[in-house]
């Protein structure tokens, strides 16, 4: 029976499947996942999954029972080998061929590998988290390459499990991508306070094994010896199937504002796709974030059902490290000037505006109350608001008061 096939049973794929059913689609719906598990959330893998006393089960997004109740054919361990776009067929490793009327690619991303290094651990899936858990021993010395979200969250988890941690980042500071310097500094200070040996602005010349240990030879001559070597150096969009099917690529599977690929019957969503963002001048971006996967899954389902709304959700992501909560809304430029608003309790919100005065990003690291403020900033960004720098900096001017009234109604009815 021909219907909709979704390749990739992560957050974006599962979110799309559920949204298709919610949107009234009653035809055949197949969700193909390469992993042996039902869809689960990945954010806990670098946090709770490493810290809880017993290994927790995956945080399910769609259980087999829920899939059955929604008449979603969930196939786990299903490896897709190729797509015949002209014939509208998907070929699986087990030899089966499935016809589709519409196809969604939600193939995700895979961790970039360190060239020429053996025995390095990466984190992407549940098994990776379990492997890390067993290796993060209290007396061990862990070396982490990469000061992005994964590297820093793993550094926090390793310290909390009692391991000694050295983190090496070749850029001048941590979180260069997407987090303003002032906020990254709060995170870096918290890691230093926790005892992480944070080395920034230094590259790696060579990695060698010495028995059970790893030797990291830094470009400045220093040598780091570690029992465990973890790399969190970014992720590459999983585009193999799309490329072989002849779809346009551009730092990911290239889609338009409606998440349509260059083939009229094929769509893409989540970490794997690069899309033009209407709020940022149509700039093509690719986001590796939980919220984006959720939102794009829902948005692409609407498009597949005939909807005409372009995707223009404000990018938003979070990280939890120790007792710190980090949130970013919008697209922050690493070195652009920021406007600070100091909240009671010591946390500061940092805003960025473009040359025309439009708010384009807000970020903060600190206590949980910042979540409310970042959410309001997100609404201001969605409204293309041009708040005055003085109002942004003044804690006694509620961000809520800067919102245009229409958005309040939109937000509460959506």
């Amino acid at each position: 029976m021909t219907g909709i096939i979704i390749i990739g049973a992560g957050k974006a794929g599962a979110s799309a499947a559920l949204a298709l059913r919610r949107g009234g689609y009653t035809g055949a719906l197949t969700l193909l996942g390469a992993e042996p598990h039902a869809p689960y959330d990945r954010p806990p893998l670098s946090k709770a999954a490493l810290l809880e006393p017993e290994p927790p089960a995956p945080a399910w997004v769609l259980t087999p029972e829920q899939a059955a109740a929604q008449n979603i054919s969930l196939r786990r361990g299903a490896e897709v080998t190729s797509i015949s776009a002209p014939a509208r067929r998907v070929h699986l490793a087990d030899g089966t061929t499935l016809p589709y009327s519409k196809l969604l690619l939600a193939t995700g991303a895979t961790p970039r590998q360190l060239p020429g290094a053996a025995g390095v651990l990466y984190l992407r899936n549940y098994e990776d988290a379990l492997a890390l858990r067993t290796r993060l021993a209290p007396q061990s010395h862990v070396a982490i390459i990469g000061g992005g979200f994964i590297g820093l969250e793993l550094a926090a988890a390793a310290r909390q499990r009692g391991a000694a941690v050295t983190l090496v980042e070749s850029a001048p500071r941590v979180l260069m991508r997407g987090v303003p310097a002032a906020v990254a500094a709060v995170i870096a200070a918290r890691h230093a306070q926790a005892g992480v040996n944070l080395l920034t602005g230094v590259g790696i010349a060579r990695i060698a094994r010495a028995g059970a240990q790893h030797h990291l030879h830094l470009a400045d001559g220093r040598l780091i010896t570690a029992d465990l070597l973890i790399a969190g150096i970014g992720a590459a969009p999983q585009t193999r199937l799309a490329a072989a099917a002849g779809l346009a690529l551009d730092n990911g599977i290239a889609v338009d504002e409606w998440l349509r690929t260059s083939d009229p019957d094929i769509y893409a969503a989540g970490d794997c796709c690069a899309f033009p963002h209407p709020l940022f001048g149509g700039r093509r971006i690719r986001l590796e974030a939980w919220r984006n996967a959720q939102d794009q899954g829902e948005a692409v389902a609407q498009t597949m059902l005939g909807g005409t709304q372009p995707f223009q959700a404000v990018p938003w992501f979070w990280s939890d490290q120790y007792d710190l909560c980090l949130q970013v809304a919008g697209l922050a430029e690493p070195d652009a000037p920021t406007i600070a608003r100091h909240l009671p309790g010591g946390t500061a919100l940092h805003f960025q505006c473009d040359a025309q005065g439009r708010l384009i990003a807000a970020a903060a690291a600190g206590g949980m109350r910042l979540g409310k403020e970042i959410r309001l900033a997100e609404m201001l960004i969605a409204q293309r608001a041009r708040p005055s720098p003085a109002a942004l900096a003044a804690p006694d001017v509620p961000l809520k008061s800067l919102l245009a009234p229409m958005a309040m109604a939109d937000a509460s009815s959506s």
Partner: protein
Amino acid sequence: MPQIIDLCATSDIESEDVIRVDREGHSFAVYHAPGGKFYVTSGLCTHEAVHLADGLVMEHIIECPKHNGRFDYRTGEAKGAPACVNLRIFPVTLAGGRVTIALS
């Protein structure tokens, strides 16, 4: 017999806002809805046990400050991922300018 718990004064909460009140080993979120009605829910998000009173209230929706799980605080209904378990709600009695609930 349900236990009557006095939570706060109606004047403690601005309209379209929420406060946290801890009583009897429980944490509650007390809401002042537009139009003057008051509602009480469990104070912690059903997703990761974060205090909801730190979140944003828009009309009848409370959003968790941590991951933006959303609930209708009148019914407790979970309205958006990652929140998928409904929030416990408590019937409210207003008397003499005080907000009280019955805890069974």
